[in-house]
């Protein structure tokens, strides 16, 4: 009661605001509830679930996708629990449970929802397999931490070994199926991950290039960044659909997914470059001077001193850019006819059973949910990373 009075009704004006916004909130929540549980016709999602998630991926090879996801879950949990940099204070059990719920609750809820929508027993097995992968990863991470003192496995070797697991399965999946048969949310995810992995180093190089003392390098980097940032992403994607033919013989012309990855990589790199440049500028001159005074060369000063600090300072902006890239992958559907999830989502409303009955709401809501959960997980993990690396501490 006291809390309500102090926070919501401190003055007449506060009271009015609280009531008005409270009413709006209740109305919105009720509409949402009504849509989700009463008026929503979710059979369109149930029928087309596989199409939305993986597109026309050959069904007899679906186990490859499943195994890759299990392998990814294994790797992520092994990598994060095996970190030798344990926190100073061990948080209480309840705090740890709360933390886990915040981190994985939404993702797990989505998993359960997908299993329910899919129906049948096979999806349930895959769900259990993913949990198994996570537990195996956590177990391995823990053992490593406890034996780390005795058996000294170099950090690099350890990370190389565990990242080899998901990479093997993803490579296997890629080699056994043709990439152009991929579709649905799987292809959004794939395009986003590959573009993130490629655009990050490219962006860092561009940022360093823009600060280079060599005029040619500086001009080239600056021109590239300003050109790319000056063009709408959608235009670049459309261009990639036609322009590559000018440079590559038609028979060698790559598929739409390759084009999409290329554009997203080049586009995001320009933005990453500006973010990293901002980070480099935030590192004080004294750091460079201290490096020089020790006798370090220019490249060692950059890679050992200024760049690590710069990258740490820009984690939030960096992750924001990657979230934006993740969501922008939906543009590849409209521009390059990639069979990604939004493209599928609009196409299924034109099936005979659903045509002309306004199923677009349900379809878009489901697509939106997938992206929202993905973005939420990314932003949450970025906050954890910030804390672990001590952003804001000098």
């Amino acid at each position, binding site marked *: 009661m006291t809390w309500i009075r102090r926070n919501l009704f401190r003055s007449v004006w506060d009271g009015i605001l609280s009531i008005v916004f409270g009413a709006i909130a209740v109305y919105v929540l009720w509409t949402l509830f009504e849509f989700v549980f009463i008026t929503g016709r979710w059979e369109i999602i149930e029928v087309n679930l596989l199409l939305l998630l993986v597109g026309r991926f050959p069904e007899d090879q679906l186990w490859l996708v499943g195994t890759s996801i299990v392998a990814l879950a294994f790797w992520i949990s092994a990598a994060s629990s095996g970190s030798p940099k344990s926190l100073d204070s061990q948080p209480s059990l309840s705090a740890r449970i709360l933390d886990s719920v915040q981190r994985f609750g939404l993702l797990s809820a989505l998993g359960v929802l997908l299993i329910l929508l899919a129906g049948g027993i096979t999806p349930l097995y895959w769900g259990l397999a993913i949990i198994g992968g996570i537990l195996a990863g956590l177990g391995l991470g823990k053992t490593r931490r406890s034996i780390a003192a005795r058996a000294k496995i170099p950090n690099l070797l350890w990370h190389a070994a565990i990242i080899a697991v998901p990479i093997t399965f993803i490579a296997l999946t890629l080699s056994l199926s043709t990439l152009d048969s991929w579709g649905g949310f799987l292809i959004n995810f794939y395009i986003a991950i590959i573009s993130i992995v490629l655009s990050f180093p490219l962006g860092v190089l561009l940022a360093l290039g823009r600060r280079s003392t060599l005029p040619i390098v500086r001009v080239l980097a600056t021109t590239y960044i300003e050109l790319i940032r000056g063009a709408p992403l959608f235009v670049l994607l459309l261009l990639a659909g036609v322009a590559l033919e000018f440079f590559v013989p038609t028979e060698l012309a790559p598929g739409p997914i390759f084009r999409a990855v290329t554009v997203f990589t080049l586009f995001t790199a320009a933005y990453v470059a500006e973010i990293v440049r901002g980070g480099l500028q935030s590192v004080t001159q004294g750091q460079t001077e*201290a490096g020089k005074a020790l006798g370090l060369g220019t490249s060692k000063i950059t890679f050992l001193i200024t760049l690590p600090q710069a990258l740490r300072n820009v984690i939030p902006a960096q992750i924001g850019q990657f979230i934006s890239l993740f969501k922008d992958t939906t543009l590849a559907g409209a521009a390059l006819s990639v069979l990604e999830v939004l493209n599928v989502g609009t196409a299924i409303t034109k099936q005979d059973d659903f045509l002309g009955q306004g199923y677009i709401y349900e379809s878009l809501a489901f697509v939106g949910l997938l992206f929202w959960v993905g973005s939420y997980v990314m932003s949450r993990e970025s906050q954890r990373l910030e804390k672990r690396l001590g952003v804001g501490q000098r």
Partner: protein
Amino acid sequence: MNNTVFTDATKMSGGRSSKDAIVTLENVDKHFKEFQALKKVNFQVGKQEVVVVIGPSGSGKSTLIRCINRLEEHDGGRIVVDGTELTMDIRNIQAIRRETGMVFQSFNLFPHLSVLTNVAMGPRQVRGMSKVKAEELAMELLERVQIPEQASKYPSQLSGGQQQRVAIARALAMKPKVMLFDEPTSALDPEMINEVLDVIKELAHDGMTMIVVTHEMNFAREVADRVVFMADGEIVEVGTPKELFDHPKEERTKKFLSQIL
């Protein structure tokens, strides 16, 4: 070593022949755009000599020692450190930086690295020492500046005085022939100044060649072999602490001393 002998010789001659000199400045000029920060500075520092540079702010003290390891580029005259002349040649610059350690007013420790890694950075990355050897050396030096227990912490977890002692250890790790101190206590809270000055004094006793820019006059009196008074980019007066503080010859020196003492 023969610290006293050297000191006495310095005091008597008020300078020394270039044979014994480890740092030599001849007619050094430095401009920042229109402003002339150093005007024809001539100056020598002998092996194991402790020189303290004093003067009002803006007099060119910091610029002087920052020119010695090329954090600033002089635009006239010659600077020779341990037989190597400071030219545009990056190899010469690197050679001189390896032989000179520098301690900054604002510490400039690397905030993303542990204290131990900070100190081991020079020997490991510049001298090519192995990680184990470099960290052993770093630990020895942290003991010498009396904070071995802070080795695994990060700079932001240390007090200003502790940070500055780590910075001294980091510079010493390169086994420099000359140490340059640029107002090492100016950014410190008063109660931490002495712990840093004590470390510097000990270094002086061990025979380290040092050039110290400072406002700590008692420290200058106690440790310096020679005191240099600078004003307006020029060296106005050089002498033993006794000569300079008790019997200043120049008008500008007298005025400065009367303002601060």
